[in-house]
């Protein structure tokens, strides 16, 4: 039994039957690790940044009153169709501040904190006192462009803030897909054994040997209009082998334990044995590689963006680095996105390690 947390006063009052479960205890241990908690808070902040990115930096009003109706044009950053078509037909979308007033003097709007756009250059005269974004070498970080501008005069800070969405989504969606496939296949292989295990293990082996780049490049180019979502599915659909192998090993180990034999003797069906009895116990060791998988997925997406393949998304952090390679003098195209990728990957690695420390009771003794 792992030692209980130091709650001496509380323990005397609380009835014995209320001992904390495995996950509650693991969470308690996780919370006591400062680094892992800091990393978790950092990822949480990134998520907030991603969700509210159109409100933080953008050129579209968060809320505006226009020709008698209330609109939320900033939602267009999430999905183009969420921006009301009335703004397109009225020709407002590329210059909200001026055109809104021009077309409807009664209109009012709430603006994002910073007036910059991730997808286009802000031109002169869009807002008061703005001379437009500088282009290329002139686009050093400044008061107007915190992280500088790229070759086309697009604001790097805006791109990076909106790019958080992609980085986080890639991490969660593709690793989620990989986890579901990997756990399912590993569980089936380990639980049933025999020829099922043999076939699934061969499939895993084949998948591990196919070069990832060929797979992704071929699949992406077969899709007619690849989007970031396709990329997520492709990364997820081929990143499950490690998780499957671990799950399989855990199942092979657990299915021989007495409690499983007891459950089997009680006449439970295989599905109940698999999901209720074995899976919860096999989950803890599998969660750690899943966390590392998130970091790996983000890294893979930025690598693809850097190589200039994959989905042509203008805000991906990797894309900025790709532009940086072509313009080495523009160091701000390398330093800022590079730091963002580094910190995100580091955070996920720290969280993974924290979970490892928290869920593996045998590791506790090694704490010096």
């Amino acid at each position, binding site marked *: 039994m792992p030692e209980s947390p130091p709650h001496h006063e509380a323990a005397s009052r609380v009835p014995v039957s209320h001992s904390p479960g495995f996950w509650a205890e693991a969470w308690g241990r996780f919370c006591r690790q400062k680094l892992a908690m800091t990393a978790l808070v950092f990822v949480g902040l990134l998520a907030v940044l991603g969700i509210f990115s159109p409100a933080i930096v953008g050129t579209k009003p968060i809320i505006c009153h226009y020709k008698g109706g209330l609109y939320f044009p900033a939602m267009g950053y999430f999905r183009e169709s969420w921006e009301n078509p009335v703004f397109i037909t009225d020709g407002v979308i590329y210059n909200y501040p001026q055109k809104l007033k021009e077309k409807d003097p009664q209109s009012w709007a709430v603006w994002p904190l910073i007036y910059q756009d991730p997808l286009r250059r802000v031109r002169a005269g869009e807002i008061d006192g703005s001379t437009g974004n500088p282009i290329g070498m002139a686009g050093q970080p400044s008061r107007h462009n915190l992280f500088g501008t790229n070759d086309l005069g697009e604001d790097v800070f805006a791109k990076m803030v909106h790019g958080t969405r992609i980085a986080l989504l890639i991490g969660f969606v593709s690793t989620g897909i990989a986890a579901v496939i990997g756990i399912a296949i590993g569980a089936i292989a380990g639980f049933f054994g025999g020829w099922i295990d043999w076939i699934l293990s*061969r499939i895993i*082996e*084949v998948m*591990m*040997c*196919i*070069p990832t*780049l*060929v*797979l992704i*490049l*071929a*699949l992406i*180019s*077969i899709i007619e209009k690849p989007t970031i979502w396709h990329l997520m599915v492709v990364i997820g659909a081929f990143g499950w082998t490690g998780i499957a192998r671990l799950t399989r090993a855990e199942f092979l180990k657990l299915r021989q334990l007495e409690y499983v034999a007891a459950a089997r003797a009680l006449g439970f069906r295989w599905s109940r044995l698999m999901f209720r009895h074995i899976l919860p116990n096999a989950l803890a060791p599998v969660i750690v590689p899943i966390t590392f998988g998130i*970091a790996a997925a983000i*890294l893979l997406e*930025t*690598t693809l963006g*850097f*190589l200039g393949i994959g989905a042509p998304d203008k805000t991906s952090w990797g894309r900025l*680095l790709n532009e*940086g*390679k072509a313009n*080495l*003098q523009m*160091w701000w195209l*390398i*330093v800022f996105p*590079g730091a963002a*990728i*580094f910190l995100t*990957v*580091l955070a996920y*690695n720290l969280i993974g390690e924290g979970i490892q420390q928290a869920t593996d009771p045998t590791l506790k*003794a*090694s704490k*010096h």
Partner: protein
Amino acid sequence: MLNYLIRRVVFGFGTLLVITFAVYALIRHMPGTPLTLDLAEMSLDQQISSSEMKRLERQYHLDRPWYVGYWLWAGKLFHGDLGRSIKEKKPVSRVIGERVPRTLLLSGTSLILSYLLSLPLGLYSTARSGRLDERVVSTFLYMLYAVPTFVAGLLLLVFFYKDLAGTPFQLEPGMFSRNYSQLSTLGQVLDVAKHMILPVVCFTYGSLAYYSRFIKSNMEEVVRQDYIRTAKAKGVGPLRVLLHHAFRNTLIPYVTMIGLTLPALIGGSVVLEYIFNWPGMGTLYLQALSQRDYPVIMGLTLMFSALTLLGQLLADLLYAVVDPRISYQ
């Protein structure tokens, strides 16, 4: 043992067939063929006529369905022929053969460096475990491990190629200087060595951090064993305990890792070679993919998968060699 080996090799060949079949199917479904992509680059007066196009398509079997194409490719492979590169008009084996030594130059150097450096680093951090200097070194290595190679590579280029431009310390991307052919033999060696510095640094730092952490975590497990305490109790010096008693028992996982690095050793790194314009396997791979040079892609895939399988087999065999408790039936 022999039985096991034969079974593994037979399964390995089966796996290779499945992989090459899948990859062939995939790349033949990518839009464009080597000929049409070629056409797009040519000017109008160079355009080939449709009859010429038909002839070329026949020559490369592009007019046949992809499964027939795979069959023809596999048949030739059976006779030891990887086919001819459509772009470079040379046998694929020669195209790949030219690139292997260049990649090996980078990956081999880096492998040796990271093994040589990670051993003392790992042992040092075990010996000083928990002290301030060890914490600093370990934290630094941990952070280094999270730096993506392309970020590090670009930053190194910014500094050594752009910022130091004009000074004797400037380091260029690529493998050779422009005046390479005029240099003496010694000069040529030095020139390549100079161009190797940045890619090798990038190649090494990640695995260095990984290996030394790996050694440390293995050592920490061993150091807690009873026989270590016994050794200390009977008065063996700390250095001898560390090297003679503890380290020898951590060799098993370390040795098996050699097998797993095999594909990376020859496959190189696409990203690193792309950053530093290194004309190795990685750039060949990227180039063949974008030009749809099917025979080259297939040759590279075959080589890469065979190496991966071989590496896994090697790792399993090394396990049995270093640990007598493991035997394969």
